[in-house]
Structure formats: structure tokens, C-alpha cells
């Protein structure tokens, strides 16, 4: 029971990282991207391949995972960000599928549908963090979440955060104010991808195995639900959203009712969350974080 609670918290942490990334893209810039599963996969496979095939240490693979995901973020961001909202959703959804197809078919590198097994466990100061002893792993994941939160929060308060919000509110007005909208959008995409890449890396060392089947469209939808439920444009809220969605997701198992509750129930619930939130509470549970840009606190204008 306690172990299961810890497991949910570990998954919450991994998804919170993804959700914060999604929040930059969707909550701040207002772009509907459906690729977090793809970036998660890139991060996971980077760690898996580097540590199993090339014997790298986990701590070296994690920045590579993040940067590689970010690079792909830029790569798909550059052409697709010029698309309008709905087209972007389809194009990014397509990208997620492409990643999965490549992982499934590039047998010589990714081992195809069989996936990669026996990923070495993480060592922290010579102490081995096994996924079986949950406390240590939980701490590891949440250190990343907290660091991520602090950085993202700083970012939101910075010039860039304001620029991103300006783009969301009115892209044409923003660009006429001299904001390089494409540059900022690509940055947002890269950051969102980076965060998901790191999450993927953590997931790989927790699962100790990767297969293409783990990175379906469902993952992207869950992340989106987290952001929408918690509240777009609020990093605290999306972490809360991550927890709530994971909690709902595993609720039947947690209370021992998984034999009674039909397995499709939670998926239907996710769908309902999207619809209901949009109609009655589009700002999410906590709502957008409104920052009063007081000149006394932060020297606005030039940095």
C-alpha cells in the first residue's frame, strides 16, 4: 500500500517534469503540441542506448537525453511553428507517431519491438538506487522536479516569460512590439522537449527497460490533461495536475477495486476532464498565475 503510494508519487514526478514542459508550450505560448510522448521516448532511448550499448554512466546520459530531445524540439519546431494552432496539433501528433515508428523499426540501434533490457541502475555517491527501494528513487525524481520548478518559475518571471505570454495573448501585437515570436516559440519548444527528455531518462532507469509500446499518443494526452486540469500557465498547478491525473489513473488499483471498475473507465474520465474543464473551468483548478509586474520588485524593461 505504502509502496504503491510511493510508486504513484514517482510516476507523478516523472510526469510533472513533462507537464511543466508542456505548460511552457501550451500554458505560456498557447500552442497545442501533442509530442511529449515523442520527447519522452527520445530521452528514454538515449539513456538506454548510451548506458547499455556504450556503457555510459547514467549521470552523463541525462544531459545528452535532454539536449537531444531539445534538438529535436527545435528541428520540428522550426518548420511547424509557422503553422496555425490546429495544424500544429496534427503535425506534432504526427511527429510523436514518427518517433515511435522509427524506434520500432530501427532494429540495429533500438532493437525494434523487443526494446532494450537490463539498463544499469543509478548510482548516487556510490550508493545504488534500486527501483525496488522506492524512497531513494522518489527523492531522486523529486530533486529533478524541484530544480525544474525553480528554473521554470524563474523563467516565467523573466523577460522571456513575459514575451511568451504576450505571444499567447496576441501574436501580431507582440511581434509589432518587437518580440521575435519565432525565436521565442522555438525556445519554448526546446525547453518543453528538454524537460520531457530528462523525464524519459529518469523513466528508463526506473523501468530498467524500454520498449516502443510505452510511448503512445495516450502519454501525450495524459500530460495535456495534467496541464488543463491543474491550470494552464501555472507551474505549481501542473504539478498538482500531474498528481491528480496519476492518482485517478491508479485509483482502482490503490483501493483494490480494479476487478470491479472497468478498465476503460479512467480513459473516459480523462476525456470528460478535458471537455468539462474547457466548458466550466478553462483556467483549471488553480488558475493562471497572474504576475503583477511591479517595477519595485523586478526592474522591468531592460535586464
Amino acid at each position, binding site marked *: 500500500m505504502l509502496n504503491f503510494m510511493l510508486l504513484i508519487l514517482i510516476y507523478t514526478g516523472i510526469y510533472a517534469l513533462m507537464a511543466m514542459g508542456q505548460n511552457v508550450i501550451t500554458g505560456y505560448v498557447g500552442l497545442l503540441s501533442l509530442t511529449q510522448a515523442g520527447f519522452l521516448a527520445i530521452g528514454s532511448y538515449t539513456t538506454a542506448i548510451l548506458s547499455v550499448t556504450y556503457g555510459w554512466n547514467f549521470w552523463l546520459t541525462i544531459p545528452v537525453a535532454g539536449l537531444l530531445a531539445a534538438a529535436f524540439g527545435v528541428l520540428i519546431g522550426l518548420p511547424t511553428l509557422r503553422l496555425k494552432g490546429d495544424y500544429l496539433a*496534427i503535425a506534432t501528433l504526427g511527429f510523436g507517431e514518427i518517433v515511435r515508428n522509427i524506434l520500432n523499426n530501427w532494429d540495429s540501434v533500438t532493437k525494434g519491438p523487443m526494446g532494450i533490457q537490463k539498463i544499469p541502475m543509478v548510482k548516487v555517491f556510490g550508493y545504488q538506487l534500486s527501483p525496488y527501494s522506492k524512497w531513494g528513487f522518489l527523492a531522486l525524481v523529486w530533486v529533478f522536479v524541484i530544480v525544474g520548478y525553480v528554473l521554470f518559475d524563474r523563467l516565467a518571471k523573466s523577460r522571456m516569460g513575459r514575451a511568451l505570454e504576450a505571444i499567447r495573448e496576441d501574436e*501580431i501585437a507582440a511581434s509589432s512590439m518587437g518580440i521575435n515570436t519565432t525565436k521565442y516559440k522555438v525556445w519554448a519548444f526546446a525547453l518543453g522537449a528538454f524537460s520531457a527528455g530528462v523525464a524519459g531518462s529518469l523513466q528508463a532507469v526506473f523501468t530498467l527497460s524500454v520498449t516502443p509500446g510505452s510511448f503512445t499518443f495516450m502519454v501525450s494526452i495524459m500530460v495535456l490533461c495534467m496541464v*488543463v486540469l491543474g491550470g494552464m500557465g501555472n507551474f505549481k498547478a501542473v504539478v498538482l495536475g500531474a498528481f491528480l491525473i496519476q492518482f485517478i489513473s491508479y485509483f482502482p488499483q490503490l483501493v483494490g477495486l480494479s476487478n470491479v471498475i472497468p478498465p*476503460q473507465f479512467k480513459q473516459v474520465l480523462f*476525456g470528460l476532464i478535458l471537455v468539462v474543464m*474547457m466548458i466550466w473551468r478553462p483556467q483549471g483548478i488553480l488558475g493562471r498565475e497572474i504576475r503583477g509586474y511591479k517595477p519595485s520588485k523586478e526592474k522591468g524593461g531592460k535586464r
Partner: protein
Amino acid sequence: MGSMVEFFQHLMNGLTLGGIYALIALGYTMVYGILKFINFAHGDVLMVGSYIGLFVYNFIRGEVLGAWSILAFFLSMLVGMVFSALLGMTIEKVAYKPLRKATRLAPLLSAIGISFILSNLAAWFWGTKSRKLEYPFDNSPLYIGEVSITPHQILILAVVVVMMVSLKLFVDKTRIGKAMRATSLDQDTAKLMGIRVDRVISITFAIGSALAATAGILIALEIKVYPSMGTMTGLKAFVAAVVGGIGSISGAMVGGILLGLLETFGVALLGIPYGLRDTIAFVVLIIILLLKPEGILGKAEKEKV
């Protein structure tokens, strides 16, 4: 068998695959043309319509034989269409209408939610097993030389053409079609001109959804009926609609056929690995949107400030 036979067989396969995309794309393009909004749930409405058609067909088919089973088939299709039309209108009322004035993101998210609800409810109540919809006619292949084509493939291509022409006539010539075009141009002005915009939108959804059911039941003959039958095919059909020029009815046909041919020849002759076959659609989408965002037959439109 020579390679010419192989080439023409691929051509035939590509054409009929494209026909399937075109059939679904018509419904997408219809709704998008009026509302400028991707109905993510279109593929799921298609699936529900196919299930209803299947149930009705299995119920009334009984011992009916010969030419009568075709009649039974079209009757089932009609029931499926009516049901889908009602479903589409309900979805619009419940999930999209309240969001008409919200941000662009809101209806999109709501549509994804509806799509998820429908496909999972279907899996919940009807199971995920593929169900067979029996051909109401003899589907043994016909041969032109050594190239084969089935009556079903011919039927799909024929229905696409008929549907395209009648839709075009409907939108261009009828009063309600005119109202639709007006709504598509500018909802507020249309309202001022005395057009009941809500009703027009409702009708658009009804027609779009009925088209989805028609497409679903026709393709179900070959691909069977199952909860996710509309998802990937629907997505590609959307790509086809965009490539052809979204909102353009003949564009849906052009885009669909083009995509079918590209997918078939891409892997058959250009040596693109099969694993990347689904990729072709999305790459084509991105290229078209960058080079000619309005699509092959679409009208260019300036972004409003």
C-alpha cells in the same frame, strides 16, 4: 508476372486506398470549411456509425439473399447515417457550442476529449474485437490483364465521386448551402443578414457526421469494425483534406487520391521503409503547409488581425 503488372497493381492499390481517404476527408473538409475547427472526434463518429450500421445489418439481414441483401445494406447505412448525424449534432451542442467564443485552444481540447470518450465507451460496451461486416455482394476480384480490382474498390471510388458532386451541388446551389458559405465567411455578418447561424452549424455537423458514417460503413467491409478504426485513418484523411485544400470539396478528393498514391508508391518504389509509411502523410502535411498553406485547390486566406 512482369514489373509492368506490378506497377499497375500498385497504382490500383494506391487509387483505392486514396479513395478511402477521400471518402473520410469529405466530412472533415465540410466541418472545417464552415467552422475553421478540426473535429478530432470525426473518426470516432465514423466508428460509432459503423457499429450501428453493423448491428442493424446483422439484425435485418437474416436469410435475405441475393440482390435484397444490397438493399438491406443500404438501409443499415441509412440508419447509421441518421444515428451519426444525431450524435454529431449532440456533440456540437454539448461540447463545442459553449466554446464558440473561447480561445482557439478550447474547442480543440474539448474535441480531443470527446474523441477519447467515444472510443473508450465503444471499447467498454462493444469490446475491442474486430467484427466482420459481410459483403452484401460477391466481392471476388475482377482482372484487367493480371491486375486485379474488386467490386468493393470500384464501389468506393464511385461513391466518392457521387458524394463529391452532390455535396458540391448542395453547397453551391441550395439555400442552406448558401447560408453555410455565408456562415463560413463571417458568422456575425451572416447573423445580421438573418441567417440562423446556430442552425446552420448544427446542420453542417449533421451532414459531416452522416458522411462519416457512410465512409465508415463502406470501409468497414474491408477493414472490419473496431473501436479505433477511425483514429489513424481519420487522421490521415484529415491530412488529405489539408493537402487538397481544406474547405474545398474537390480538394478532398484530390488530396485523398494523392496521399493514397504517395503512400503506396513511396514504400513500393521509392524504397521508403514500411515502418515509415505513416510518416509520409505527416511529412507531406508539413511540406504542403509550408509551401502552399491553403492546399492544392484551396483559396488563399489572409490571417485576420
